[in-house]
């Protein structure tokens, strides 16, 4: 494979064979080595062959092998002759991150950290197949999927200001719960307000470094040692079922034999099935927004009870990591509506875009990039350059580089907990095995990932945070 080095952080695979556009990879030489070890590049080239793809198929610095599309993959499709693909979004639709600021400092929470974490752990169900505390009817669940975070706020979980500070304002208007299968709804009913398992987490963090104080201030972050709360989770079983349902429906309708990978199955955006997927996916996106909204509400409640106040716990932002949506982008010098797929990638819009709330419109949107367990996480700011270089997208996290099996063989959950305690990080989890699997050493270096984003200019460094308390599903 011909990999052309454009500059220190940009590599390109020229158009060849059935590729309709070239592939561009944003990575350092170290990250590229890791990317080359699995099928990421092959998968990115497969994406470049899909009908109606525009400009380039992109791989973000944290890219790794996925199904059909790579994780860390960004692709845009023409609305008339392009496609929409469940594999381009992923199984965990709107897996994403929400960040709350507080006006507490490290010293304010230090003594009560254990209590805070224990209370949150008690109120926010986490772990495999864990149901929530809310008993919903089918009708209410459909309402949640229609209105997203708006439903949660209307029902007393949070503030209107939270909605403004959520991607899509917490509600994709394209959602139509009528297209959800009975199974998707049944899987969603017990799971609203639950964290889930795997790489999902809730962290109490402190600000560790501020790179851009002016932008940080606009995001509500003013001091080193300031306490923040980060919530990482998605649409749970409901979203997974939507992906499986539409992969099956598209398979039954369209042939898979001419696809290089069965998981690349897609439907024309304008087709009935393509539209149905989009409306169902939007419903799952809304479920995830409502889910994070309710968890955030629980967190504020716990802070109120344990520390006596939740004042100043404003939402910084809430971003999607797995989503498809319609956006305007400049292609060949002309503004054009396209269907963007971001799979394990974060929208990174720069100043001026009307999609971002007024409070941030002069600087660009907050981009939240969670690290792995016990490591730093980052807040970046979106850029105009990203709109030119990656359809307004950047990385979404550290990206796995070691199998869970291997991680279990090398690390012990008990030891990891002890090591983290030594660094002043408290850990609450449903089981040891999950902790071993999520060991930081099983992931790429998030510092390196965000550095590439910063150097390429697709997301600029604003704040670095480190955990003081971690809750794992």
């Amino acid at each position, binding site marked *: 494979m011909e990999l052309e080095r454009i500059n220190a952080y940009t590599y390109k695979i020229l158009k060849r064979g059935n590729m309709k556009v070239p592939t561009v990879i944003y990575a350092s030489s170290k990250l590229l080595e890791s990317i080359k*070890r*699995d099928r990421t590049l092959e998968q990115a080239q497969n994406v470049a062959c899909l009908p109606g793809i525009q400009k380039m198929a992109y791989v973000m610095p944290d890219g*790794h*092998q*996925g*199904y*059909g599309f790579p*994780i860390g993959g960004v692709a845009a499709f023409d609305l008339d002759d392009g496609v929409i693909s469940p594999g381009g979004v992923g*199984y*965990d639709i709107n897996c994403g991150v929400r960040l709350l600021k507080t006006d507490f400092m490290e010293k304010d929470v230090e003594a009560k950290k254990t209590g805070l974490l224990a209370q949150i752990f008690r109120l926010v169900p986490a*772990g*495999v*197949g864990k*149901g929530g505390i809310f008993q919903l009817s089918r009708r209410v669940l459909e309402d949640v999927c229609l209105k997203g975070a708006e439903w949660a706020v209307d029902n007393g979980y949070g503030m209107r200001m939270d909605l403004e500070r959520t991607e899509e304002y917490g509600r994709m208007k394209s959602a139509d719960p009528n297209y959800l299968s009975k*199974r998707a709804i*049944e*899987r969603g*009913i*017990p*799971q609203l307000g639950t964290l*889930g*398992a*795997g790489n999902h987490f809730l962290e109490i963090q402190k600000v560790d470094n501020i790179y851009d104080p002016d932008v940080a201030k606009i995001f509500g972050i003013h001091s080193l040692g300031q306490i923040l709360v980060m919530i990482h989770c998605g649409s*749970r*079983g409901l979203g*997974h*079922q939507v*992906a*499986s349902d539409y*992969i*099956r429906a598209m*398979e*039954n309708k369209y042939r898979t034999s001419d696809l290089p*990978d*069965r*998981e690349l199955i897609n439907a024309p955006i304008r087709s009935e099935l393509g539209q149905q997927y989009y409306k169902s996916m939007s419903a799952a996106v809304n479920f995830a927004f409502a889910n994070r909204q309710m968890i955030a509400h629980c967190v504020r409640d716990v802070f109120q009870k344990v520390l006596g106040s939740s004042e100043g716990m404003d939402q910084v932002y809430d971003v999607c990591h797995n989503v498809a949506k319609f956006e305007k982008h400049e292609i060949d010098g002309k503004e054009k509506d396209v269907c963007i797929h971001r799979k394990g990638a974060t929208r990174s819009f720069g100043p001026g875009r009307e999609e971002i709330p007024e409070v941030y419109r002069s600087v660009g949107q907050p981009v939240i990039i969670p690290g792995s367990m016990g490591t730093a996480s980052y807040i970046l700011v979106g850029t105009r350059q990203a709109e030119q270089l990656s359809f307004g997208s950047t990385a979404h996290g550290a990206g*796995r*580089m*070691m*199998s*869970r*099996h*291997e991680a279990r063989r090398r690390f012990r959950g008990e030891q990891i907990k002890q090591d983290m305690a030594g660094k002043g990080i408290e850990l609450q989890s*449903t*089981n*040891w*095995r*999950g902790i071993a*699997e999520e060991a930081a050493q099983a992931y790429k270096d998030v510092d390196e990932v965000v550095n590439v984003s910063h150097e390429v200019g697709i997301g600029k460094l604003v704040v670095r945070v480190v955990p003081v308390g971690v809750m794992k*599903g």
Partner: protein
Amino acid sequence: MLFLWVSDCRGILVSQDNLKKYQFLEHTADAKFQAFGRSLEEAFVNAVYATVSLMWDREKIGRKIQQPVKVQGRDLEQLLVNFLEEILYLLDSQMFLLHSAEKIKIRREAERYVLEGHFLGDDYGKYYQPYGDVKAITYNEMEIHANDLFMVQVVVDV
């Protein structure tokens, strides 16, 4: 479509009567396994056990609840995905933890395959402690082979 499985099977035959149920292979981000059987049904059932092994210890689950299973697929790959997806559906919607899959039969009907049988297991309750999550069953690197022995290979999203 069934391919002839030409690889050496001796590694999975622990003894003449004792077949290895499944084995896990290295996969960076997810979990990849091969499940074996003397029949297609046995290989499918062992794929169920491999999937469950990522989430809980099925030996510890009671055999108190019976869940009928009936799935279809336009090919064997789709049949397998739909079959394994039943575990996740029953877990999320009914808090059902599987102990075993029994009386599983696969038949060909016109343009499709049909699988029928039942799962035995128990309600999640307060006592069981699952340890891992499977988000979805995928077609990624899926292989179904038949010779004297049957083998199915699956990657699941975890």
